[in-house]
């Protein structure tokens, strides 16, 4: 599932390369799609031949850290590094593991980025997604349902960044002029959440 997710992320980020960079143009430096595509292309090329989920996620993290650069590199790198830590040695994931994965990842970004929701960043997609995962499972939903809810929450969170005033990253330099634009990092985060849903669905089909 994790390997499938990684492949799905690589393909969806490559498809959306131009669109993500374009979102980064009015409120950033127009490179977010290039950065993510370059990073995940390297991830695919260097993915270790293991079923150890912790090792796979750490591999993703290290490649992103050394290939992406910019703000997104260390932040997504931290996300996968922290996400993978409790999963070292595991080859199967329970739905609770998936919740844990997202929550650890998000905590890592919060700390590294000194940021939180409402600041017009990737956290505005990732945090609602993590919350939706946990609550759907708590309400008795299965993983597929939880991921569907998480994807919807990430999408809503992503769109919710449009009216926000940026408080972190390059977009924050624009002040009021950052309002009215969708955050590129929140957009890639939405794609990453959706990719997990698609990967899981692909497997169960």
């Amino acid at each position, binding site marked *: 599932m994790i390997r499938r997710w990684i492949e799905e992320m690589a393909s969806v980020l490559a498809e959306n390369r131009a669109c993500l960079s374009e979102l980064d143009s009015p409120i950033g*430096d127009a*490179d977010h799609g*290039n950065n993510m595509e370059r990073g995940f292309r390297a991830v695919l090329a260097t993915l270790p031949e293991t079923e150890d989920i912790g090792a796979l996620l750490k591999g993703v993290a290290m490649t992103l*850290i*050394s290939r992406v650069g910019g703000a997104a590199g*260390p932040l997504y790198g931290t996300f996968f590094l922290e996400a993978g830590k409790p999963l070292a040695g595991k080859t199967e994931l329970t739905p609770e593991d998936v919740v844990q994965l997202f929550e650890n990842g998000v905590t890592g970004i919060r700390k590294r980025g000194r940021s939180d929701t409402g600041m017009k960043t990737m956290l505005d997609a990732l945090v609602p997604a993590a919350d939706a995962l946990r609550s759907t499972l708590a309400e008795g939903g299965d993983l597929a349902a939880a991921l569907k809810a998480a994807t919807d929450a990430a999408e809503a969170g992503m769109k919710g960044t449009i009216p926000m005033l940026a408080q972190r990253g390059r977009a924050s*330099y624009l002040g009021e*002029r950052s309002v009215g634009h969708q955050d590129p990092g929140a957009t890639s985060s939405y794609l990453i959440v959706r990719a997990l849903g698609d990967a899981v669905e692909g497997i169960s089909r």
Partner: protein
Amino acid sequence: MKKLIDNADDVTLEQLKGFGLAHDTVEVHFDPNFICLAGGVEGRVAVISGGGSGHEPLHGGYVGMGMLDAACPGQVFTSPTPDQMYEAGKAVNGGKGILQIVKNYTGDVLNFQMAADLLRAEGIEVRNIIIDDDVALQDSLYTAGRRGLGTTVIAEKVCGAASREGYDLDRLAALCRKVNIHGKSMGMALTSCMTPQNGTPSFELGEDEMEIGIGIHGEPGIERMPIKSATEVTSMLARRILEDGAYTRTLSEWDSEKEDWVDVEIQDITFQQGDEVIAIVNSMGGTPISELYTVYAALAEQAEQHGVKIVRRLIGHYITSLEMAGVSITLVKADEEILHFYDAPVNTPALRWGA
């Protein structure tokens, strides 16, 4: 796309190759990419900087005797990755620690922090000092803070010289911090620029428009307005710099006792009557040298009106944004210590005197 390049997907690589061929005072390493002083560093603090490419001569052009020991170039407008600083740091480490001079962009700050963590794990002491001198950005509480602009060049020059004269790591970090709080910059653009990867301008400006308060990554600035005369533009930038308040912000610095990154509150100086300053009138890339002189004349006039005296100046291409037309102005208050190290000999591809 009107660029003299071979491969839009990795211009940094081809340019670095040419740089290595051209300058035999430096060594260029690949994968991970960094430029370092040929000959190495012994018995003194190594000074490293880096950032996205596209700002040349910053930083690679400042590697050499009396300035940087190593520079780590990222992709165009994208900060370098921690493995670059890690390898560069190991290559130039002379046993007295490393000062990393970091421009205040989220990506640079985070990647240099990770690099510092990696180097520290190897037993190398590292200090990261942030340069955040762009007065276009007023607020610090609700933003990523001020960007790093031209003060970076002065910090690299001054710290490189001080390392040669035997400053230890803490003293060098303190000097770098001082240059930062003594330095203020602001820029403007007449045109946008285009990264080779994207091939389209990063923002659109009308034929009669200019953008004030821009950074160095083709980001839009803080205000768009009709083009004015060089003197009016300069007055606008210079007054903003000269009248800037005692900007206060919280920056992450390494605390070697707590062994963690801690928030440090740092306050800028304000310019006072009688101050002596080092000035940079910097082309953003596409603006020809000749035009910088009308700007300099207007800057000198503004400084005089504020009772501030320009005692040294750099006029040319120092920290650019690809082919963007425009100018940035930097003033750094120069005390005796700063002036002494500024005047010390330097021999780098882009800055040379006394040697």
